């Protein structure tokens, strides 16, 4: 959705600070060690937490309310293996820690989060962190899991070895967190220099590992037995034959559910919204006021809100895939295909999450180490079918595609068309990547190194929070962008006012209104695609965000007396043939109608060059494809 994914503005706590107390504390640790879970627990913010390495790709700040110090700023950082950054997200962590990241205060204390199930390896990071001289509290996370599986560690001895306080915690269950409170409120405890500490040579991995191995041996660390569960699941999900088949089945299943369960939900929700409008009608004075509120704004908003149930279902499924740890496996399965286009499996993760929204997906490309690979991925990500396209597709499919089922009800024609649109976006992304990687973005291959996390059962709480957050963003969007656009549209559709024969003031015919004239002005350009001037107005407004198209059509038809009483689906038949509808869908599959995506591409590539190139390329492709689809359909139907 447009503007859905802009990071929330953060105001550092104001007011006087007690001298000698910490102001800014950084959470640092290796990837997937549980920093974000802890961050959420300490701040009450809901940072996205998924089960694959590299979920956090930028620094996030929050006020620490969870441990009773609300004058303190906590920074969550991307996971790092060492202070020698290997990818863009790790560079962010290193820069914040050094205090060179613009707009982020230099932390004056560090919470080092280590996964105690892999302590020896994770301790390698402790050396460079302790060497920074910042007061550090070492948090051994997931100690409960480690002990359950026969692992153990002497944390007192570890504290002596590191000359820093050590606490055992479980970020998931929230145990042991009072140690953080103590550490933060009693500076001087474990702070200052580390006289007894002999650190390995910083930046040398071999020496860091030797040091870590010695420390862990002296602290009596015993690694837990590895779990069999993940291996068993992988023997099916990464099976030669079943693996790829299950992957396809999952994708098709998600869309089938979005239709078979989501459609009736959306229809029901639409009825409720329409009834609410009818109930409000007698309450409003007749005349322009009633027309603006009900036919303009309410029709516009409800035509988009109707799709809320289906979008939330989609986010629920993507949430399950992310939280369970399946995404990393998908990257592994996809690596072979990705290498044929000159990218690797890691580029697949952003492409997959772009099914929800391109904005976080483009930020997720920071985990791709090779700069040219990363740019290629950024440039093709907006082709992936994001959830903002869903309202447009669902509306047009419901209006123009018959509900025929094949194979005894296993798959419907509507699902096939929907899958076809997803495939079209996917093919466009792959072909474009292939072209880019064999021309302007050609580069030597960077090795593919992917950590596969253990499977985790997605918690109901985390899934519910995700879906609620998404719902809130969608509603907020409907309440701001869409209300604004629909109001402006309604006004433009009622200007200039005309005097009727009886001398009364009235609105013009839609065609002769300001917006109607604008639509007619661009009609010659879009007529070859099978679109008339009304669709043209929708296309113009959808440059802001794709789903605005639907609300615009809702408002236009609501304002026009000839279509006012019709449902949006029926009204569309006045203006479009099947060829035009298919062309419109393919236009939406390829065109870059999203200002938020353009803004994030500009930010991630540091120049307007790439978003502009991308916009033009996608527009040309969309226009060409829509032209072909419209003409082929017309020829086939005679």
């Amino acid at each position: 959705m447009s503007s859905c994914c802009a990071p929330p503005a953060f105001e550092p706590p104001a007011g006087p600070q007690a001298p000698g107390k910490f102001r800014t504390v950084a959470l640092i640790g290796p990837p997937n060690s549980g920093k974000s879970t802890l961050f959420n627990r300490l701040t009450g913010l809901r940072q996205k937490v998924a089960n694959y390495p590299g979920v956090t790709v930028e620094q996030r700040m929050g006020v620490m309310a969870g441990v009773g110090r609300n004058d303190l700023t906590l920074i969550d950082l991307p996971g790092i293996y060492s202070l020698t950054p290997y990818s863009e997200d790790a560079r962010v962590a290193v820069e914040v820690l050094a205090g060179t990241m613009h707009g982020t205060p230099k932390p004056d204390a560090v919470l080092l989060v280590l996964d105690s199930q892999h302590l020896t390896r994770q301790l390698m990071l402790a050396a460079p962190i302790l060497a920074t001289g910042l007061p550090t509290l070492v948090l051994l996370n997931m100690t409960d899991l480690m002990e359950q599986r026969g692992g153990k560690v002497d944390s007192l001895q570890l504290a002596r070895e590191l000359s820093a306080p050590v606490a055992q915690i479980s970020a998931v269950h929230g145990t042991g967190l009072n140690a953080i409170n103590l550490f933060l409120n009693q500076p001087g405890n474990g702070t200052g220099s580390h006289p007894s500490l002999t650190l390995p040579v910083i930046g040398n991995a071999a020496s860091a590992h030797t040091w870590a191995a010695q420390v862990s041996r002296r602290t009596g660390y015993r690694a837990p037995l590895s779990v069999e569960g993940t291996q068993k699941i992988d023997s099916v999900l990464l099976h030669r034959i079943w693996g790829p088949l299950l992957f396809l089945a999952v994708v098709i299943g998600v869309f089938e559910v979005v239709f078979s369960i989501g459609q009736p939900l959306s229809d029901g929700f639409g009825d409720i919204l329409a009834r609410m409008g009818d109930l409000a009608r007698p309450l409003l004075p007749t005349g322009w006021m009633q027309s603006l509120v009900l036919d303009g704004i309410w029709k516009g908003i409800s035509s988009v809100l109707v799709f809320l149930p289906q979008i939330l279902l989609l986010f629920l499924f993507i949430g399950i895939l992310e939280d369970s740890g399946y995404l990393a496996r998908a990257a592994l399965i996809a690596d072979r295909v990705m290498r044929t286009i000159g990218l690797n499996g890691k580029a697949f993760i952003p492409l997959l999450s772009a099914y929800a929204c391109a904005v976080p997906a483009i930020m997720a490309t920071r985990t791709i180490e090779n700069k040219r690979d990363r740019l290629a991925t950024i440039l093709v990500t907006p082709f992936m079918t994001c959830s903002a396209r869903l309202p447009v597709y669902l509306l047009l499919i419901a209006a123009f595609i018959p509900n025929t089922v094949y194979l005894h009800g296993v798959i419907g024609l509507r699902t096939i068309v929907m899958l076809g649109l997803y495939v079209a976006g996917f093919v466009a992304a792959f072909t474009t990547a292939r072209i880019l990687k064999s021309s302007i973005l050609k580069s030597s291959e960077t090795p593919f190194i992917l950590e596969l996390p253990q499977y985790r059962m997605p918690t109901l709480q985390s899934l519910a929070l995700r879906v609620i957050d998404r719902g809130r963003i969608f509603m907020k969007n409907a309440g701001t962008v869409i209300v604004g656009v629909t109001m402006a549209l309604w006004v433009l559709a009622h200007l200039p006012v005309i005097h009727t024969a009886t001398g009364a003031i009235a609105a013009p015919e839609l065609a002769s209104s300001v917006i109607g004239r604008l639509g007619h002005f661009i009609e010659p350009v879009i007529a070859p695609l099978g679109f008339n001037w009304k669709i043209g107005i929708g296309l113009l407004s959808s440059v802001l965000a794709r789903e605005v198209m639907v609300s615009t059509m809702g408002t236009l038809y609501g304002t026009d007396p000839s279509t006012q009483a019709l449902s949006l689906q029926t009204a569309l038949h006045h203006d479009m043939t099947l060829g035009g509808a298919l062309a419109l869908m393919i236009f939406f599959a390829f065109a870059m109608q999203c200002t938020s995506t353009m803004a994030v591409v500009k930010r991630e590539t540091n120049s307007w060059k790439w978003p502009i190139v991308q916009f033009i390329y996608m527009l040309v492709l969309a226009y060409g494809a829509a032209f072909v689809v419209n003409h082929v359909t017309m020829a086939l139907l005679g």
Partner: protein
Amino acid sequence: MGARKVNVLSELSVGQSAVLVALDLPETVQNHLMHMGFVPDAEVTAVRRAPAGDPTVYSIDGLEIALRHETAEAIRIRPVSTSSTLPEATQNMELAEVAR
């Protein structure tokens, strides 16, 4: 036990284990892999291959990491049984070397 002599990680069959000897990779890559646990003397097991036959998932230090064939080809290994060096001694030597 197979009689075939295995010298690089990519030749390791699924289910087999070996001991890591050295990484013949560019320094940044080598450094990154070492921080993920691919250090000399670590025991590594080939767990499974991806459905397409490549990459392969390796288990090292309780962690599963996938590498492509060409990366695994640059990692030298030796059989588990012929471990001759004392880990402690080697490590001290390494530290001393680094300190110089």
